[in-house]
């Protein structure tokens, strides 16, 4: 791939990279710093980039997350024993009843506010997976690659994140007099 093409692709993804940085940092200034660092590293690492089906976005996200966690001085990506245990427990958790209420029947504005709060309150490990999957449209395998965790861990974290959000929305449904089981 031509260098100019690589750079055009990278700059085309700037909004998505900034959006993810903003969700990670929760602060515009820190997000801008993080994005600059990400692009500096990405441009230096051009030769290691391999174009795949989903373009450059997952690769940039991977660099972004590496920069972020390096900056934090923490490694929140590593799967924990609890994660693996939860993954093993996913099948049995699916035996829980299906929600009797329909999301479409809820007031969207109310749902948006409560969802935002619930997502903000999520454990960062769950939130990272959820945002990459729901907002950026990455596949399970791409999320696993970005966060450098096994596919099963992505599935279990996503399952847990959705279960938590679903529970919060059930409360909204109940407050609005919409039946829940």
């Amino acid at each position: 791939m031509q260098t100019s093409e690589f750079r055009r692709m990278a700059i085309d993804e700037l909004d998505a990279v900034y959006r993810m940085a903003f969700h990670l940092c929760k602060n515009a200034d820190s997000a801008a710093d993080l994005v600059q660092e990400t692009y500096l590293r990405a441009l230096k690492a051009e030769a290691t980039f391999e174009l795949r089906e989903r373009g450059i976005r997952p690769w940039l996200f991977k660099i972004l997350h590496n920069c972020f966690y390096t900056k934090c001085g923490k490694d929140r990506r590593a799967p924990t024993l609890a994660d693996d245990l939860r993954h093993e427990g996913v099948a049995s958790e699916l035996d829980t009843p299906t929600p009797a209420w329909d999301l479409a029947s809820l007031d969207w504005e109310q749902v948006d506010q409560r969802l935002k709060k619930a997502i903000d309150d999520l454990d960062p490990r769950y939130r990272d997976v959820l945002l990459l999957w729901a907002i950026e449209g990455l596949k399970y395998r791409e999320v696993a690659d970005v966060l450098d965790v096994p596919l099963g861990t992505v599935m279990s974290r996503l399952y847990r994140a959705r279960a938590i959000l679903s529970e919060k929305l059930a409360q909204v449904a109940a407050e609005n007099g919409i039946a829940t089981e």
Partner: protein
Amino acid sequence: MPKPMDDKEVRKYLEAFADGELDVEQNLRVLEHMSMNPQATRRAMHQQQLRQAVERAMKECSPAAPSDLRAKIEAIASQANDDDAVTLKQMRAAKHDRGILAVLRRWTPAIAAAVILVVTASIWFQMRQDAAQPGLPVYQVDARTAGRIDRRHETCAAALDRLSKAHDFGKEVGILPEKVKEFLAMNEGVPVLDLSSIGYEYAGAGQCGAAGGKSVHVVYRGKDKPPISLWIRADSEGEVTIDEGKVYVATPADIAHPILIWRRNTTVFYLTGMPVKELMTPAWELATAR
């Protein structure tokens, strides 16, 4: 006709089905199951609705990249052109080394400890050498100040020639202090910013786009020398905890563009563009200017 799924498989595949992660055969098998089980259909729909709700809620509070950040990233990308040949060569060489790295990875903790020891020793040695130069003392900022500065100006330092045109600081170094004072709304005067006596010509000034407050970015060019950048920032709140009359190293001394920092009353100056040793002469010239 696909083979019907048992309960265990359904539990395993239903969410992946809702997320569009299954292959054609698996999809058909889940659909077959759903045709006989309305609860499974409802669960799959719920998962899809939840995804849409998350996307909708979070996109609303997801700002687009600010225009100044976009300009800066584009500047970095165009600046990087000059370094392409070297960088690509280095990266290709690095690819060949990955096999060796895989082996080394097992020894990472021991290697990391050794590297930290060597780097710390070399920085300490470098600092001592710099400090030993007569008339050019250099100090290390405290951890809080280092954390505040961190890599804030790394981007500017990577694109030293790029100056924002948003504010006109003039082409004459003689009037620059007055322009800077006016721009930063300072009560005190700004010292002379001329470095021509030591071989650096004033190349221009612009508003610095780095986060963390208004500052002015001044660029100097030297003959057969890399450009150097000076940032000037008002700090009336005393956020940068350094003593006046001393020049400090604000970043690790071994990075490509270490930053030297000093204070004049409520004004803080940051200088970068060369290794610490070479940077000390212009830093001291500016720090002691009238």
